[in-house]
């Protein structure tokens, strides 16, 4: 029943050109950028450059996931590192212990992360806004402690060194350029899929839930379903990013999935633009590009991230390319006032 309704509502998916819904100057630009990025390895042979670019691509996928949850659907999640970690460990363990084709591993990693996302998203139904923030921080901490303490499976604090390289179509990916292409392909597919989702009913329902949950519910939108869907999609993208980083670095360890990673992903989305796909990628280029290319800045990373967050929020709260209006107070003043016949809230 649900599936049938889902199919009917989203019948439009796949019947139009892939770039439908993109604003005019955007899709030719994106297309040109993609061509340029495919051609880049023919011109430059700098392994370090491709290392940075691959890192940026992977973080873009991760941040897109965060943006689905926070930007598109308006849920204040701060645990993207958990999904990233679940994807990475799943992928690493599967490829160490079993001989499976990489696409399958990638799908399983994304799927498990997505399921974790739905599990975390479940409290989102009952707990709004700020508490959800805390629950997601908590979930990320729980997952990190599991990575750290489940020695038999995850290698504990040492992690899992020697994650085998990806084998795709009989070819073993070894160099940075190979992983650059793999990440570029994953990012391109994610972007196209997300733009299509945003242009469908699902995207509009996300928007309705974000803008006004009560009104959305009153209009007959299944708020619960769309919140869980946003968490599932966002977490699955995190899982894809995790799988890529595990094979790219040939290592996974609990230090890679801390609160700091969640903070950076959050900063990318905030600075780049809430609810904007190109904005997310711009944010990743700005932040990860700065961190990765200027190694001397390592002691000042927190300053940079902090100043970017404060500056963005004070100047343009929804980020550089943000599509979300954040000026409306969600709870209008006086909404929490107790009814007149009750005694006033004396809780301080």
């Amino acid at each position, binding site marked *: 029943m649900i599936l049938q309704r889902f199919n009917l509502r989203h019948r439009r998916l796949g019947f139009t050109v892939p770039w439908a819904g993109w604003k005019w100057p955007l899709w030719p630009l994106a297309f040109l950028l993609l061509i340029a990025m495919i051609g880049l390895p023919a011109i430059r042979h700098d392994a370090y450059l491709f290392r940075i670019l691959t890192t940026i691509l992977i973080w873009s996928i991760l941040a897109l996931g965060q943006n689905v949850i*926070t930007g598109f659907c308006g849920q*204040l999640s701060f645990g993207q590192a958990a999904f990233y970690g679940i994807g990475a460990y799943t992928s690493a363990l599967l490829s160490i212990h079993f001989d499976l084709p990489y696409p399958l591993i990638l799908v399983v990693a994304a799927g498990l992360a997505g399921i974790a996302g739905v599990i975390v998203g479940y*409290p989102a139904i*009952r*707990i*709004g*806004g*700020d*508490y959800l*923030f*805390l*629950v997601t*921080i*908590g*979930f990320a*901490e*729980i997952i990190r*402690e*599991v990575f*750290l*303490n489940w020695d038999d499976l995850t290698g504990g604090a040492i992690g899992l060194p020697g994650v085998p390289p990806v084998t795709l179509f009989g070819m073993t990916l070894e160099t940075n350029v190979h992983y650059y292409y793999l990440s570029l392909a994953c990012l391109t597919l994610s972007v196209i899929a997300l733009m299509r989702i945003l242009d469908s009913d699902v995207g509009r329902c996300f928007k309705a839930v974000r803008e006004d949950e*009560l*009104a959305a519910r009153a209009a007959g939108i299944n708020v619960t379903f769309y919140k869980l869907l946003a968490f599932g999609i966002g977490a699955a993208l995190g899982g894809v990013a995790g799988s890529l980083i595990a094979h790219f670095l040939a290592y996974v360890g609990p230090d890679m999935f801390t*609160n700091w990673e969640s*903070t950076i992903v*959050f900063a990318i989305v*905030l600075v780049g633009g809430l609810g904007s796909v190109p904005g997310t990628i711009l944010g990743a280029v700005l932040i990860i590009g700065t961190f990765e290319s200027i190694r001397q800045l390592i*002691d*000042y*990373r*927190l*300053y940079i*991230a*902090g*100043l*970017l*967050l*404060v*500056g*963005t*929020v*004070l100047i343009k*709260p929804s980020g550089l390319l943000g599509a979300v209006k*954040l*000026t*409306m*107070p*969600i*709870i209008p*003043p*006086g*909404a*929490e*006032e107790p009814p007149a016949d009750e005694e*006033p*809230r*004396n*809780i*301080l």
Partner: protein
Amino acid sequence: MTPVDYLLAQIVNGLSAGCIYAVAAIGYSMVFGVLQMHNFAHGDTLMFGTFVALSLMLAGVPVVLALPLAIFLGAAIGYAVERIAFRPTRGAHRMVPTVSAIGVALIIRNAAQSLWGTTTQAFPIAIPASTFKLFGIGISTTQVAVFVTACVLMMATQFFVNRTLIGKAMRAVQQDADAAGYMGIPVNRVVSLVYMIGGALGVAAGILFSINYNTVFLMMGFSVMIKAFVSAVIGGIGNIRGAFIGGLLLGVIEALTAGYLSSGYRDAITFVVLILVLLVRPQGLLGRPMVVKV
């Protein structure tokens, strides 16, 4: 050691840790109460102030001077956080001040990292750590001192909020900031004051933490803040007594987990408790249910 003694010892450990969370939670909860905004810079304010106390004492400033100075600095940071992160974003979407507070927290953390580095340091206060026996379990004087200080701070805050004129103004602002403004209460100054008290209580909690565990480190702010947050939610956020009880409960739960299950999963249990509380009784033990109206 009999099982009962072991249990009692764990509970005592839990209470001494819990009263530290309680002090941090009171500050956190007051700040939340006044504008219904979460202050995510609370933890880093706390950590910075504790490091300042450490430096002052290492520089030879006597303890009776160093600790109040550090606490005063905590109030100053609390004020700065309010001015930078919260006042310009008042009335905006709730996500906006949350993010600016995270930004300020990162800046404070980086400043601390530049000044004191990332290594864990010992805290130079030595309360003569003698233990005495009570009902068969050893209790150290440090634990008693920490517990008594925490109780005094809680009662002082409670007195200040409930029995003084400024406290009355705070409660008025909390109930309805606009109406309080019409009545002539200087809302902005009251809000600043609450953030200052929050910062001061935070630093006090940080110092108690460092005395209890004899350690100061960069990430202590984050971990204590998360515990304070959870305590405040357990007790009913915005409620001073609730925050105190929540802190003690959390400390005991944590100590029992570490004592009987596994110390590695201590923080995980904290969050499991939190999630359960939020699902079963979102308003906390002493809070009142929040009603969302259109």
